[in-house]
């Protein structure tokens, strides 16, 4: 039995280590969410969807005290928000996910109320970069089978030594538990702490995938494009000469088959740039140059 005893104690010890940096975030009407202490000078990391308002925010600290917090910035595309509280806190220790393998035991931690709560699971899948439904770039796909109880969003995924592997969010996908990896958090927090927001490209169109004409499909080896179902007045799309009913099938050197392909092109670093594009209009392929705007 000693090995089970040892395992239980190791799990509890990892939870205890991480708990010193795990906080409660009171920023929405119904249930509090969780947060993680990012820096000793008071930056708190949490999930954007758990921060429903911009002010009257409060954070429950590990010592039981509750302090006022201000919003530093938020990135809806990766579901990250950063808050600031006054005081000196214990920052979390972060590790990269390079050593994480399918089958590893991991714990999800949350502090929806006073005490830290934990659930145990295994790493289900680890793979490369992906994009959230809102178009945010996440460097590592990290899926686990931990159960995320209400209020666990903004909490931590931890490994054997109590170090943080990332931040859990229940809003990134339905039906599975996904974790934002350390590398992505570092990038997003750095941007939010400096600019208060993450720049995103903007066209001002609604679109839906449609099948390309057979001849074009054969020529390109591409089945679908995006038909523009709305072009906002005065938007970058309109200014660039895009029309309602155009089918966009190529932009910035990349094929556009579905919405994700377009979202991938609309990254923050492209704001202000002109990119070449090809659209199908009245059965003819035409070249256009599109200047990418910035989403407010």
């Amino acid at each position, binding site marked *: 039995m000693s090995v089970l005893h040892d*395992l239980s104690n*190791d799990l509890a010890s990892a939870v205890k280590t991480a708990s010193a940096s795990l906080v409660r975030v009171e920023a929405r009407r119904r249930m509090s969410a969780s947060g993680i202490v990012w820096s000793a000078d008071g930056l708190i990391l949490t999930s954007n969807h758990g921060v429903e308002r911009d002010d009257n925010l409060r954070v429950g600290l590990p010592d039981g005290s509750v302090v006022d917090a201000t919003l530093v910035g938020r990135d809806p595309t990766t579901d990250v928000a950063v808050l600031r509280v006054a005081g000196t806190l214990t920052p979390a220790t972060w590790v990269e996910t390079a050593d994480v393998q*399918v*089958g590893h035991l991991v714990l999800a931690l949350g502090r929806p109320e006073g005490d830290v709560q934990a659930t145990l699971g295994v*790493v*289900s899948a680890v793979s490369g970069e992906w994009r959230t439904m809102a178009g945010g770039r996440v460097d590592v796909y990290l899926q686990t*089978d931990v159960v995320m109880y209400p209020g666990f969003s903004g909490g931590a995924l931890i490994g054997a030594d109590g170090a943080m592997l990332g931040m859990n969010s229940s809003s990134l996908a339905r039906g*599975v538990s996904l974790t934002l990896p350390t590398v992505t958090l570092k990038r997003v927090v750095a941007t939010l702490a400096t600019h208060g927001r993450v720049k995103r490209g903007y066209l001002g169109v609604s679109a839906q995938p449609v099948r390309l004409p057979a001849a074009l499909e054969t020529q390109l080896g591409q089945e679908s494009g995006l038909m523009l179902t709305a072009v906002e007045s005065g938007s970058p799309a309109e200014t660039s000469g895009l029309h309602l009913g155009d089918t966009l099938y190529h932009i910035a050197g990349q094929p556009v088959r579905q919405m994700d392909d377009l979202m991938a092109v609309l990254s923050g670093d492209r704001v202000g740039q002109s990119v070449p594009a090809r659209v199908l209009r009245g059965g003819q392929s035409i070249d256009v140059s599109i200047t990418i705007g910035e989403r407010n």
Partner: protein
Amino acid sequence: MSGVYAQLNSALSGMIGSVLRSVVQVRDGSRGAGAGTIWHRDGLIITNAHVAANRVLQVALPDGRVLDATVIARDEARDLAALSIGARDLPTIPLGSARTLQAGQWVMALGHPWGVTNAATGGVLIGVGSNLPDIDLARRDWVVADLHLRPGNSGGPMIDVNGRLIGVNTLMTGPGVGVAVSVDTAKDFLRETLGATTTDSVIDSAGYV
């Protein structure tokens, strides 16, 4: 820290890496895909009947090959199907038995939930047999565990801590409850449906590992 947590992680990921060599994807050409497990090295795959509902199937091997598959036996009552693919010297999964399992033992299930390939889920065994609550009593030898099966896990292996096949993932009955057809039922199925044309060495192919 005793270090047992880290040792377990290393043992679990090593064991899963080995078993994944025998886990295939079963595609029916339309929506989604199920999983399957290489039972015999010369191209015998075990999966669910509901994964092999179409006549035209393809099997994607871990080495990247995608081969046409033939359904050689199918039994909806037991939700099992045997597929044949034109490949030889494939890595097979070692066979265990569900009859010696005990409640509380650590088990894992592999497959492709929601299309995420080669994913793992784990939990403890709830029980084995027919007298489990909310399970259709007409079908015996279920292996029931508190893990998370999702569409795409069907037909993949449920395994013990030694990486041996104990069941074929078949369904979820609620949040956090996964059910597999026991490996013993799968052996009976293969013996009954292929027995006339093949030998016990194929059915008990653990010896080939």
